[in-house]
């Protein structure tokens, strides 16, 4: 269950924010992560509800949005954001098929909705 490790990381980041800002409740936690990161919103919320019970975070809902898919072209050496969803991606600058994904495995706490 890697979601538990992620929830632990999220909670410690929210606690840091509480020390910096005055708030009594967290309503929403927005998480940004790479396209290929195998994090499921449903599982993350399930873990979070269990761990945050009885705290100022317990009403919070986690929402995930995916970061753009970055690719590099081996021919013209440019980096680009892939928009087409075909099986054979091409470079948007030179049209080469010699392209590789820069898979982003990072997970970020993007922003918090608090009151």
């Amino acid at each position, binding site marked *: 269950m890697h979601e538990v*490790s992620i929830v632990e990381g999220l909670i410690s980041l929210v606690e840091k*924010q509480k020390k910096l800002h005055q*708030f009594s409740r967290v309503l929403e936690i927005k998480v940004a992560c790479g396209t290929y990161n*195998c994090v499921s919103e449903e599982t993350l919320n399930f873990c979070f509800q269990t761990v945050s019970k009885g705290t100022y975070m317990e009403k919070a809902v986690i929402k995930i949005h995916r970061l753009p898919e970055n690719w590099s072209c081996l021919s013209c050496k440019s980096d680009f954001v892939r928009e087409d969803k075909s099986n054979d991606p091409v470079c948007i600058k030179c049209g080469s098929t010699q392209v590789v994904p820069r898979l982003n495995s990072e997970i970020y*706490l*993007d922003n*918090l909705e608090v009151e």
Partner: protein
Amino acid sequence: MEIKVMNKVLEANDAWAQENRALLKKGSVLMVNLIGSPGSGKTALLEATLDRLKGKFRPGVIEGDIATTKDAERIQKKNVPVCQINTGTACHLDANLVNSAIQQISADTKFDIIFVENIGNLVCPAEFDIGERAKIAVLSVTEGDDKIEKYPLLFSEAKALVITKMTLHPYTNFNLDQAEKTFRKLNPTAPIYRVDSLKGDGIGPWMEFLSTLREEIK
């Protein structure tokens, strides 16, 4: 009220990973992280590798499993220092756990190479930096060549791909050309080794790769 944060969620893990890198650098130790499915032949590859390292490098092993010390017992038979981590429920090793394991096995022994055999899983171990020099993807021919495409993160991050159980290849429909083609789409540079750990076929080039990695950190 909205608060913009944009902090890495796994920053605690990443901090431990950096700590591990510093610790290994201090002792000039190469750490490689073997990742593959359960039953892909990670332990067998390790056994074949350890046999051939004798007299050249001083190896140590960190074994990660949900339960049991079965793998550590196999490694112990090779007279190599080993530390077994049982994660209980977690599907991956994190940098903090690996730090305690490094501390434990390094207490009274010096190493040139530490092998970490991660928990059998193609998903989660790829997401956690443990401070290794290289992630190695281990894929057996019995699993099928489609696994590369299905679990792209590991294969894109790997510094090498080891295809195992090559003796069984004629009895499977694993397409080696297709596997290499798919791998190259994700990872244009990492070398690919075809091995049979039990027979020792193809182990030579893999051993040379490890020596090169070890040279790089000296």
